[in-house]
């Protein structure tokens, strides 16, 4: 099927199999390999992206469902700068180790902070609940997000 998807401001037209997942479309067809795959079941959140302003797990969506949509991925976060304040905070707080979950974490945190620039610690934890990290134990991730709240 022919689809037209805008990702990080660039519009792509591609012919995709109807059953192709959005995450595979991003990674395999568009070479946007920043979003990752950590499970088969929608639990891990490593593939989290923002679709038309809504945080979604891109393994839970078919590419054809994103036809006409505006998708934001980790590659688009710091388009005009080296790192966003959130990304810098992750670095300063040692909120990543292997870095595999990090793109998904950043997208979840970005979506949270857009909706609620002053979340409580409990709200941060709840917002990151859909993202699994096996390296950090989450403490430093929560601290990193907390540090950029207003």
């Amino acid at each position, binding site marked *: 099927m022919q689809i037209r998807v805008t990702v990080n401001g660039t519009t792509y037209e591609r012919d995709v199999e109807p059953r192709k997942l959005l995450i595979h479309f991003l990674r395999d067809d568009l070479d946007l*390999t920043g979003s990752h795959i950590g499970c088969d079941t929608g639990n891990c959140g490593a593939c989290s992206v923002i679709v038309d302003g809504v945080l979604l797990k891109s393994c839970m969506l078919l590419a054809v469902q994103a036809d006409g949509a505006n998708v934001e991925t980790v590659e688009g976060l710091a388009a005009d700068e080296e790192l966003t304040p959130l990304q810098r905070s992750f*670095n300063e707080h040692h909120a990543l180790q*292997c*870095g*595999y979950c990090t793109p998904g974490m950043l997208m979840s945190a970005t979506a949270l902070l857009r909706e609620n620039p002053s979340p409580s610690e409990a709200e941060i*934890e709840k917002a990151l609940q859909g993202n699994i990290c096996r390296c950090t*134990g989450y403490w430093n991730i929560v601290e990193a997000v907390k540090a950029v709240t207003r």
Partner: protein
Amino acid sequence: MRAAGAVDVAGHASETTLAPEKVEVQKGWGGQSVPRREDKRLLRGEGVFVDDVKRHGMGYLHFVRSPYAHAHITRVDVSAAEALEGVYGTLTGEEVAALTEPFFQISSAPGSQLKDYALAVGKVRYVGEPVVAVVAETRELARDASELVEVEYDPLPAVVDARRALEPDAPVLHEEAGGNLMWQGLYSWGDLDAAFAEADRVIEIPELHFHRFNSTPLECDGALVEYNRGVGQWTIHCNNQFPGFAAIMMGPAMRVGLDKLRFVTQDIGGGFGNKITSHPQLVVCCLLARKLNRPIQWTEWRTDFHLSMSHCNERWFRDTQVAVKEDGTLLGFRTKTLDDAGAWLRYEPLGGVIWAQVTPGMYRWRHIEVEFTQVVTNKAPASPNRGYSRMQHLWFTERVIDIVAHELGLDPVEVRKRNYIRADEMPYETPNGCVYDSGDYARMLDLALELVDYGSIPQRRAEARARGKLLGVGIGSTLDSGTNNFGQSRLINPDLQFSGNNEVATVKLDIFGEIVVTLGTTPQGQGHETTAAQVVADILHCPLEDVHVRAGHDSYWNSHAGFSGTYASQFAVTGLGAVKGATEMLAAEIKKLAAAVFQCPEEALELADGGVRIKDNPDAFLPFMACGAIVNANNAGLPEDLDVSLNCRYVYRPPFQLPDLERKYGNLTLTYAVQIHVAVIEIDPDTGYYEIVDYAAVDECGKRINPQIIEGQVMGATAQAIGAAMWEAYEYDEDGNLLTPNFYDYHVPHALDMPPLHTAAIECPSPFTPLGTKGMGEGGGAGIHAICAALQDATGVVVTDSHNPYQRVWRLLQEGAR
């Protein structure tokens, strides 16, 4: 949830409730919490993980897996799959048996008799075992085609419980081994009879069980394998964390020399030991890359990982007897250990000796006997997992301490303090000849107790009871032994020719003054690029940003040796030892060069400000850029005998001897990092539901090069231990079906599950390592020990299992009520 208070020099976590330790003021980069240099690419989505590597014309590999725990394969037909358009080809067990030798077995008899191939040959032995590999144009097509592969099975009865495996009528997995017993060894040190004669009490513990789980790195295994037909060489882009081990398994199996196997890694999405034994799958990729003459892409699915990769060693401790004095002084113990290796010995039976690195745990008892038996069962193969084999044994020793305290009516804190090896006894030789290098366990326990405000526990217990909750406190004191002496493998099989350990680094100064560091290691988040740069910058007296550490591992760099990799808590010793050695060689060469240029003695020179200068005449200064340019590109006229390359390779080799095989005696690891954790829990007695309401983790790992990275390792290991204690288990039904094959059924902790955490650290520099550091990162399962102890404290019932989900706690409470 709050991480509060590291007692450390950097003081980056400012919410400490403790007075800072006296730590010597650090000069230079070592000891500073430098933010990690690898982060930028990872934060921008620009890391290169294995599934990010692509090649023109690559084929996607999918494994057809066994639906049975135990069955004969009676027919395999790949013709329908191969006929599907877009399918490039297949590989069957029969082909593998013709093209390869069985993998080398570490075990002595009977385990040595196993015929282990990269795909199942003739028989399957666990659900999820790879039977056929299919390669196609797309991921989806490869899965479609796998459905068309016809495999007929003749099912056999399965043995799932290790305790059944040695019964005479138990199904036998490997007929060639004559039964399910793989390896057995009796370890006995001291004088058990005298210890039990001296004892006031003998505490009997019929059975303890350490359960099956693993660290489930978020990135599963994978590879992109290319075959260069002209030179007969494979390039294996992968996320294997111990390429040295994979190479010695794969080369002989594939009948090629190791020069034909080039391993390349960059970013690895977590390893935790689970990515050591991917060699069978890598062999399949190699055979198909050659057979189909195209690059092969394999990315393991999460379910496949859970079904087949690297479960930790499930272990039973039976008929344990502990000799104690009435005052709680521990004299010795004997136990029978039954270890469940799963269906194959992929790294096993090394677990049968690795535990002996920490034989007495943290304690001074001198009389110890362990009869170690390892069996196979129809479950996924066991392989290393964070805390490999020591964690099981340390859980056992911690359980013993708390059970002794329970039986004697003593305070677990007092029993620990009475029996801990003391700071003034360090270095301490254990009953089996291991040398604990340094530590102050009692001091660490005090710190941990202070962090949870131990004095207030009776009051908090009463408050909890008033709210209808049961409060419990538990201690997990544990060791993280690092830098293996591979000579210990000979206690498993005297014919093996492994001993010692090594790691390699090269440091060079290039034309424009670039300081380029290559490592043999395969980091998976441990921050090697940062800590290595800190060590180099301190030795060369240059800015940190002038040091460039290459990301990952590549056999072509020639900066690796037989034991290269990232596993078993050793980078701070072996990796940084190699970095220090190579950098010191480079520093000496720079001085030698400058002495020739300035016509002065080398002793008159010093390194400073990114160059070399004459101490008494700072104007005579040669920047590194000039040094690099002279040697690499402008060397006419240099003295003929000037032996300077500015490209220095150093192999760090720890000072090890072979162990005494008769007495099973010798130093098995170089360093012993320490973790002491305290957990405070509250149980709802009506349901068994419990929460950790307070938690402290105190770390000691010698000199810390980057305290923030070390604290990150402590946190990660803590979270994994909490997960294992409360939620994570690979449970099988009696037919051998895995009941937790994905993240729906296998719950790993998420952000809301994490308790409030307080951390602290002390430093007891290792006298045996180049930088006073100790390897760390595995954590020794301290959280599992602490939670078990807290549950026992809260319920008043002896806890006998390492895994305590709410329903098991509810059952404990029912038992206590009887």
